[in-house]
């Protein structure tokens, strides 16, 4: 077997063996076969003036500049069972030095944990209660602030202050109900600047901003449902008009498992449109890992006594033309050859599109042992970095058997021990399970290892703050002016015949009420108004530079202006790009700028006979259709705003026989 082993063939064969199908071709039957299950944790920043536990302004972001730096190390603390949490141990292994970059405008001594928390921001609490009411959650009687440990350094205290506002709610999607576990109000974390070797750098501007987290049960059974649920939760929050919008204001973690798999959390998915591909691939990755487990059960008979063989290579004298290894010379790095008994065909086993099991090893070397990539090569690379002779020499040195696989790792000598442990640990995990982990997402729909998934043991009460009672009257008052439900609005827009491809835009920007208002006040077709936002304005947004002063309400003012002037509403499409860029210009001036002239429809119509005459000598291809189009083209500019195209066309048709 070993002689004829070809990694590429193996990769293709294993992908086929697990029944991987690209998402575009996947059906519900495929997802049922592998037991797709997914739920969400949707994070949404709230629109408040101040941060959640201090009086710093919320929503101001710093650039690269900073005023000071503070360094912290995170130590694992014992759980109530007297054990260290898995994540805690991993983070401690990584021995990271965490650097916080502070800007005076956006952070005070609270952010860097040199001052205890101030009282929870009431504005944030009230918004969180309102959104909880809309999600039909049971509101708690008393808000208890809890500490949730995070040892990655993303919060300088080592824990996030978070509090449950409501439990057990539900949302209704188009075709099903998704249950909610809870909604919590918490402080946002730092933004990571870099993570290289043993130093991780954060900025503290976003830290402490009020954020809600809505958690669903794993009720979604295919990737599209996950996206739909996510959009719903986001739109629900946006419909209050009291949440932040823009890059990073809403982010989600997506939990995925396959049948027999494990809950894996894909962290920080920035766009809902990435969700389907990510969940699809993650589910199949787990399915592949289960297949690997089954293969290993056959290939490695005595798993308990499985032991990798290690051979220290002399980096300076190791002959290779492979650049990363050559570059490691002279830096005091180690170079180890490791034999993995019985792992042939495993390293090149398919896991995700373009990725194989070996990637699980190299990803962990980067995160746990802090060795920058490339940190590893192996005997089943599709395009091998080492020559056959080199691999044979390594196999001989390791006294490898056919059916084994080999990896070569290198990096700073201090990280040698952790690197070996990391490889050993991940390989052993392959015998039994899909590791419980959080993964970082990429736009192409693949993920890489980020952290070990923390357990429930990392929650404990915040001794620095008092519980906050929520009495009935207060909740009733907050419940009085809640916006209508997203699903009802969805059905209403359907009824209005607004094109469905505009819904995301309308919900995202919370425009439903405005559309309703414009249609009512100006007696306009909701369909036209909806399309104006979802098509015209969306296009403008993608093409022009938005002024900070632009407000969606200006669309209402524009329509009112056109109506009063008796100008055809279609001219709005020409005007809106100018309003979008220069919202302070008055509409009259814009008309002048666009060289718009008010012309009576009769005047335009009167030009038709002349154009009919002019057409024939000019055009060789003389069809009826072409003739009408040409005349329309000639009159289009003056017609816009003065006569509707439909009317103009019928007028031309009358003249062209």
């Amino acid at each position: 077997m070993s002689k004829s082993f070809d990694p590429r063939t193996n990769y293709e064969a294993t992908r086929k063996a697990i029944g991987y199908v690209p998402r575009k071709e996947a059906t519900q039957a495929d997802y049922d076969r592998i037991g797709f299950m997914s739920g969400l944790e949707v994070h949404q920043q709230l629109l408040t003036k101040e941060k959640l536990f201090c009086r710093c302004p919320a929503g101001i972001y710093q650039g690269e500049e900073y005023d000071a730096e503070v360094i912290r190390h995170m130590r694992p603390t014992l759980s109530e069972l007297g054990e260290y949490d898995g994540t805690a141990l991993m983070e401690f292994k990584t021995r990271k030095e965490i650097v916080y970059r502070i800007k005076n405008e956006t952070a005070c001594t609270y952010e860097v944990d040199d001052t205890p928390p101030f009282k929870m921001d009431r504005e944030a609490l009230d918004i969180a209660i309102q959104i909880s009411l809309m999600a039909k959650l049971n509101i708690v009687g008393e808000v208890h602030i809890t500490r949730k440990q995070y040892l990655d350094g993303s919060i300088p205290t080592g824990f996030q202050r978070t509090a449950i506002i409501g439990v057990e709610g539900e949302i209704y999607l188009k075709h099903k109900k998704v249950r909610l576990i809870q909604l919590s109000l918490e402080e946002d974390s730092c933004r990571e600047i870099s993570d290289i070797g043993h130093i991780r750098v954060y900025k503290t501007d976003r830290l402490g901003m009020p954020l809600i987290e809505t958690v669903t049960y794993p009720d979604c059974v295919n990737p599209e449902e996950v996206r739909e649920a996510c959009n719903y939760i986001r739109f629900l929050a946006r419909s209050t008009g009291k949440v932040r919008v823009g890059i990073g204001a809403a982010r989600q973690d997506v939990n995925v498992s396959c049948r027999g798999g494990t809950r894996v959390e894909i962290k920080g998915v920035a766009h809902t449109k990435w969700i389907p591909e990510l969940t699809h691939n993650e589910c199949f990755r787990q399915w592949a890992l289960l297949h690997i487990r089954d293969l290993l059960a056959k290939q490695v008979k005595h798993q308990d006594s499985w032991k990798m063989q290690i051979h220290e290579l002399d980096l300076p004298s190791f002959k290779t033309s492979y650049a990363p290894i050559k570059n490691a010379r002279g830096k005091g790095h180690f170079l180890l050859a490791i034999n993995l008994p019985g792992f042939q065909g495993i390293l090149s086993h398919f896991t995700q599109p373009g990725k194989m099991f070996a990637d699980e090893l190299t990803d962990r070397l980067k995160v746990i042992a802090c060795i920058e990539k490339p940190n590893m090569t192996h005997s089943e690379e599709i395009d091998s970095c080492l020559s056959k002779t080199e691999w044979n020499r390594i196999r001989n040195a390791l006294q490898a058997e056919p059916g084994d696989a080999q990896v070569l790792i290198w990096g700073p000598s201090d990280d040698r021990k952790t690197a070996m442990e990391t490889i050993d640990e991940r390989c052993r995990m392959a015998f039994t399970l899909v590791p419980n982990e959080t993964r970082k997402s990429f736009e192409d729909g693949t993920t890489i290892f980020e952290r070990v998934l923390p357990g429930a043991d990392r929650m404990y009460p915040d001794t620095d703050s008092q519980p906050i009672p929520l009495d009935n009257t207060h909740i009733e008052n907050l419940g009085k002016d809640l916006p209508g439900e997203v699903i009802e609005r969805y059905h209403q827009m359907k009824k209005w015949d607004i094109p469905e491809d505009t819904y995301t835009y309308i919900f995202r920007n919370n425009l439903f009420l405005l559309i309703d208002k414009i249609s009512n006040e100006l007696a306009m077709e909701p369909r036209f108004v909806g399309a104006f936002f979802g098509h015209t304005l969306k296009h403008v947004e993608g093409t022009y530079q938005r002024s900070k002063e632009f407000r969606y309400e200006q669309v209402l003012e524009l329509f009112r202006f056109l109506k009063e002037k008796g100008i055809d509403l279609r001219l709005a499409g020409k005007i809106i790009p100018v309003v979008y860029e220069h919202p302070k210009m008055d509409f009259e001036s814009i008309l002048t700028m666009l060289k718009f002239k008010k012309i009576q429809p009769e005047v335009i119509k009167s030009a038709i006979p002349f154009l009919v005459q002019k057409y024939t000598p000019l055009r060789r291809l003389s069809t009826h259709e072409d003739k009408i189009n040409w005349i329309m083209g000639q009159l289009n500019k003056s017609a816009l705003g003065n006569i509707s195209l439909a009317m103009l066309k019928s007028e031309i048709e009358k003249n062209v026989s």
Partner: protein
Amino acid sequence: MTEDFFQGYKGSALEVLKKFNVRVWSQATIETTRGLFKGSILPRAENNDDQHIVLKIASGYNVGIDISTILKMEETGYKKAVYKIPEKEFPFTPGFPKVKLLGTGGTIASRLDYRTGAVIPAFTPGELYGAVPELADICNLSTEKLFAVFSENMGPEQYKKLAIAIGQEIENGIDGIIIGHGTDTLHHTGAALTFMVQNSPVPIILVGSQRSSDRPSSDAALNLMHAATAAGHGDIAEVLISMFGPTSDEYGMLHRGTRVRKMHSSYRSTFRTIGDIPVATVTRNGVVPLKKEYNHRRKDRNVKIMPFFDDRVAIVYYYPNMKPDIIDSLVDNGYKGIVIAGTGLGHVNKPIYPSIERAAREGVHIYMTVQTLWGYVHMFVYDTGRDLMAKGIIPAENMLPEVAYIKLGWALGQTHDREEVRRIMLTPVNDEITPREPYNGYLVYQGGVKEVEDFIRRFHK
């Protein structure tokens, strides 16, 4: 003893629990007008109201249930949590220095009970090893718990007991001593021990933490490691306070027990040497002296323990328009010593002169310090000062007010003879009065100034 099934609950909330027969630590289902809640019933903090019941829900969070919304409650299971710090035997390494940790209380080494939020002190070597295993790479540690009090409850009785315990440890051949202490009055104890334990052959290191050790970013572990290094390996055989230098996890500073003060209510780098530079910096790699002169470690055991204290001493922090009855009431109540923290160079207003005269006449020892903290008392500069001295107030040079308070109590514990007390007060034991103030002993830089901002940007805070 009967078991308390309703820990911390009182009044109406207790009645509700009793009515539905639901105990603390039980799993319960609670029907309320706001919907259904499920979880384990937790004990309630004693100072919280009697209108809510605390529940830990499945996701690990705690929530409170308003008892007025409860329709029905049912106990579905019971599991009492017993929280214990794991003990691991502290390894003995031949050749490592023997260090004794004397515990007084405070948050330096404690663990949080995750369910109730109560703080449980980690104290035995085994517990400490479980929490800070690095200590075993520094020294052979043994511990003794002298008392368990918060910093603010430390007083003369504790100072004396500590001094005696330290003396015994030194006689028994210890290589260094660590005292775990709350931070609020760490500098008072630092001064007291400097006076009560003189001529120590080994370092005596006081240490605390500004963030409890149940937090991942606590300064406790690093402070303990620094203290162990300074106690076991350092050459400075004095009473020192070891706390963070910068707020960053970088290095600690060793401050003389007589020249140090807690200067921020919550910063990690709260302890600062006033009117001088710190004695040394400390990292896990060792102690780096900043001052050239200090008492070196010795092999002998010739320590002098002087556990004296007369607690009829007070500090009076002067403020404009202070009335004479403040001083009078102290004298009327039998106080024998008064330390005044005066304004500027050491002043108080005229209306209290008669009270001061009377106090002096009745044998009360009055010393003047400055509330500016930095700088010397200079009572010759203005007439006011000269008047005050004539009325019996003795200037205490650049002794910090808290240190003067401790020292006066200690001096009065030995004698009430006016001249003898004066001699003790003005003869420095270890820099509580310094002959000169170095130019870099006063560095309270102000932000906003370009060169300061540049400095802050370049070096970790």
